[in-house]
């Protein structure tokens, strides 16, 4: 990786973290559990990495198998996380 490519990634990291701090400090405490399970689902973005890791022919290499394990786990994380968050948020009603 070139230095300039690395610098751009660091820029993205720093700016996104600041944005994250700003946005999440505005989430009301009543929604902290859905926030956590929802952000848990977002951390399943590593599924993108898992897909790329699966992109290898044959089943002989360790990296392929690790990619497949990662893909299953990340899918559980993404699907389960979003479904349970939706289930919770559906219950928050004002009468």
């Amino acid at each position, binding site marked *: 990786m070139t230095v300039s490519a690395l610098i751009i*990634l660091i820029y993205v990291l720093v700016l996104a973290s600041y944005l994250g701090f700003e*946005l999440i400090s505005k989430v009301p405490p009543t*929604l902290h559990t859905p926030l956590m399970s929802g952000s848990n689902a977002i951390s399943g973005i590593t599924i993108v990495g898992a897909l790329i890791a699966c*992109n290898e022919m044959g089943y002989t290499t360790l*990296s*392929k198998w690790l990619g*497949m394990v*990662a893909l299953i786990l*990340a899918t559980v994380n993404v699907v389960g*996380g979003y479904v349970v968050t939706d289930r919770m948020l559906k219950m928050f009603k004002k009468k």
Partner: protein
Amino acid sequence: MTIAIELAYLIASILFIMGIKLLSKTKDARRGNILSSVGMLIAIVATLITINVVTFVEIFICILIGTAIGIYYATKVAMTKIPEMVALFNGFGGLASFAVGLSDYFLKSGTSLESLDAVNLTSIILSVLIGGVTFTGSMIAYLKLDGKVSGQPITFSGQHLINLVLLIAFVVTSVLVFIDPTNLIFIGILIGISLLLGVLTVIPIGGADMPVVISLLNSYSGMAACATGFILNNNVLIVAGSLVGASGIILTQIMCKAMNRSLTNVLLGGFGQTVATGGQDGPAIVIKEIGVEETAMLFDSVSSVIVVPGYGMAVAQAQHVIRELMEQCEKRHISFKFAIHPVAGRMPGHMNVLLAEANISYDKLIEMEAINDEFPNTDLVLIVGANDVVNPAARTNPKSPIYGMPILNADKAKTVIVSKRSMGKGYAGVENELFGYPNCLMLFGDAKQTITKVVSEMKEMG
């Protein structure tokens, strides 16, 4: 083509950000979660386009397995078990990032070594470390929450020294990996240390501190995703990962503040062990009991009620019967509210989810700062399964281990009823002096059963 994919990743990142932004209003929150899931779908589809078609079979199978497990678990899990589920899924996310990091390592070390440059190696080492700690740490947290491992802090002498030695060994081995990137023994040592560190850092932490640990592990799972973003030179991983990382850190800070403790103090663990003797020097607490009928009559005669729920309410599954109690009170035009302490339950916002499940309107759930001034003007406070968060020792007794922790001023109400299984101590292992106060009455028994009886008494009164 690459431009289209990069743009798709950008759209996905924007959708994640908008999704979290919508979480700031309860009525928009569900839409936010859907937006965020659409973002995820876009990111997945965009990645699939770059993938070789030949590998689609196994990718499809893996996604199918993961989806089935995810949907099954997420639809079946009881709302009281959400902390366990979040801990488990956190662990899965951590393990996935750990596996992606290692996969990339084996791919590159097996083929062309020149692609394993310094940035790449650093990112792989970080994703193994953070992912591994997240995985085993979350598993221990899960086992503790689920009661499969004792929720008590597990401590032994030299614990912190061992952690320090392991950390130094990790740094030294990392340097060795830089010198000889293809040596599998070094990578093996890094894997072992990471997994061990996760176990060792979570076992000394007690049950009542779990909200902090889950928040922190949540943050780690985001950072692990960030590390894989640096490996794959992928912006969407970094954006999503840092949003989650920030979220976990903020929740961790809120939890620590609500317990008046520093993060270091929580992480060093062992809280509540040394204080077991502290209760002996004070005079024995004299308590007054109240029966079910008297409780019902008391509820019938007051004009304002505040309920303070705690983890005990979740254990007793008492939230539904509390809604019935609320209905009985509202029929009598009694003001009925809930006071929510930030660390009530086993994860941030745990009580709110349980009460929402019981179909209680969220505008009745009031935060600590907003409701604390209302207690002196309240006729009756019902404490269900909460203990440390209403212990006045936090205000009055500098010797108490919970001294300085912000608490709900339940003791200032005219009458306080404590629904409690027995005279046990709170999770901090501290005697609660509130129980001895002249305005405090103890309603012993399982919260669900006793409150059910109170409700049926009230129904008879009509």
